């Protein structure tokens, strides 16, 4: 044992006052060296984050750009307008332009050679509340010959527009009224569909209150690529891209590596392009055959909408849980219920626009729907006040009926009251 003590004493004597040679640079130098060393994993995670975001973007792009498989609906979707529309829906005196040219051919299709000339004679029709302050029903008595309440395809609406029919008014029909038409149709009040949308948000926010307990405000620009799925992927393949700019106010709480934040965000959305190849459904209301509701034509029209884009507001309550494995970088998961509003009107249809695109009609009728976005992302706190965050959100969208809008959430089944004023 004494030998052990002797050995211990010897080691202490040798090392207790031993001083090692320090690296150059003093304390600052050591700090710099450590920072550089620690920066490497950050760089790694940054690259990983970007790679993940790119992967998610690619995945979304692939999904959005994959054509839906042809289904049985498409197989039977070769009916012409005449087959599926009531005869009086097409047989209107205003199918001739001011020079007397017939603008619908025998099958009820628009003659594009005549209609594609820029119609300087007539400015684009603007569906807006401003232009029709009265409810359409209140005008009913003023409108004459073609006053038929019907389920009609957007294509028919388009044809009327292309043929410069004086006014095709999208009607506001009360749900009760609508239900009388066809008991086979789903109740618009109750019906809802779930779709998913993918979105990538980037920029600041949505909330930056992640440093302890703070109250914050943040600007949250975003770019959203949306694509209807499930039902709409089969039916109308609707897809659109929009920009979003929001401002949010919220509060956050941070405990250790975990942070929570929640708030309120007001956003403005601009639809910047409509990318969908659109399949137009023919709704055979005139034939009295509700079975035609699901028949669709095989037309694929890919079109960029020009002119005044659709705009709408949304209000949402983003809630976010973040985990900081490092001091500033964090992973996040979020939920963001969102309600669109203010979507009525404001869609300008240029002369050469083929409004088969159903989203335009949705916008026209309003887009009364709410969404639940579930997302995940990666963020980095440049400072307590500024966070950069990449987030991929997937939206579950539920559409619902708002009083005053007869909006069939099955999207293509848009109930319209077509009123053509007398000649």
């Amino acid at each position: 044992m004494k030998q052990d003590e002797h050995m211990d004493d010897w080691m202490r004597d040798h090392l207790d006052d031993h001083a090692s040679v320090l690296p150059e640079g003093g304390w600052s130098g050591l700090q710099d060296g450590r920072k550089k060393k620690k920066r490497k994993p950050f760089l790694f995670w940054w690259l990983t984050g970007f790679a993940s975001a790119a992967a998610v973007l690619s995945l979304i792009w692939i999904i959005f750009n994959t054509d839906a498989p042809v289904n049985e609906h498409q197989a039977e979707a070769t009916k012409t307008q005449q087959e599926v529309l009531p005869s009086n829906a097409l047989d209107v005196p205003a199918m001739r332009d001011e020079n007397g040219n017939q603008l619908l051919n025998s099958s009820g299709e628009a003659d594009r050679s005549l209609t594609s000339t820029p119609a300087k004679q007539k400015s684009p029709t603007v569906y807006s509340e401003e232009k029709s302050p009265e409810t359409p029903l209140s005008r009913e008595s003023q409108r004459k010959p073609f006053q038929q309440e019907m389920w009609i395809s957007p294509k028919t609406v388009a044809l009327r527009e292309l043929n410069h029919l004086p006014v095709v008014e999208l009607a506001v029909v009360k749900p009760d009224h609508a239900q009388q038409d066809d008991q086979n149709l789903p109740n618009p009040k109750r019906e809802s569909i779930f779709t998913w949308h993918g979105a990538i948000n980037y920029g600041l926010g949505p909330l930056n209150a992640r440093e302890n307990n703070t109250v914050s405000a943040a600007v949250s620009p975003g770019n959203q690529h949306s694509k209807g799925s499930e039902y709409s992927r089969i039916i109308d393949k609707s897809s659109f891209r929009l920009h979003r700019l929001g401002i949010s106010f919220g509060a956050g709480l941070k405990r250790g590596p975990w942070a929570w934040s929640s708030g309120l965000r007001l956003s403005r959305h601009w639809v910047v392009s409509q990318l969908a190849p659109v399949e137009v459904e023919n709704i055979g209301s005139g034939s009295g055959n509700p079975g035609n509701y699901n028949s669709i034509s095989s037309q694929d029209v890919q079109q960029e909408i020009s002119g005044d884009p659709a705009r709408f507001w949304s209000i949402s309550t983003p809630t976010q849980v973040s985990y900081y494995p490092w001091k500033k970088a964090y992973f996040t998961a979020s939920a963001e219920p969102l309600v669109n509003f203010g979507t009525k009107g404001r869609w300008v249809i240029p002369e050469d626009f083929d409004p088969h695109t159903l989203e335009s009609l949705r916008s026209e009728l309003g887009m009364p729907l709410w969404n639940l976005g579930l997302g995940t992302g990666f963020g980095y706190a440049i400072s307590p006040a500024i966070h950069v965050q990449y987030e991929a959100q997937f939206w579950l969208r539920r559409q619902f009926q708002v009083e005053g809008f007869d909006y069939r959430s099955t999207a293509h089944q848009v109930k319209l009251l077509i009123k053509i004023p007398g000649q």
Partner: protein
Amino acid sequence: MQKADLLVNPVKNEDLKLAAACNRKEKLAMDRLYRGYAPKILSICRRYAANDEEALDCLHDGFLKVFENIGRYEGKGSLYAWVKVVVVNNTINWAKARVKVSALDEDPMDEPDDEWEEPEIDAERLIQLITRLPEGYRMVLNLYVFERLSHDEIAAKLGISSATSRTQLFKARKRLKEMWKKS
């Protein structure tokens, strides 16, 4: 007398002034404290670490802790002693997290070795040999020999039994002897 020695045994009043300046985040004072104490602290870190890179990490983290908490220094004892305690505690916590429980086995001790003779190696070589010990051995050896903790204290600190601590120390000594015989 070297500059480092002057700082290791300063007048308390000076220690308090230096600590206060560091507490105010005065860069010159922080650098002075670092340059004065770090060579010895680095030696301690090297004993616990497996290599020089780890030792520098340990030194850096230890001094960060020192500068974060230097406002707590009240002048009881020398500033160097306080810094050493902070860094060593930090180092022990740091090293503790790395020690594998499996390394702290409780094998029966062998018979005591032959008589020990002082090896003719310098301090630098001794540190290098300690560094080459398995983590568990190194940890217990440091705590027992240099921090002068009892086996019970080591056991409490590392969450092992006293018997394991003894075994590890015995094996550490044996391994060291073997190593410096070879060297």
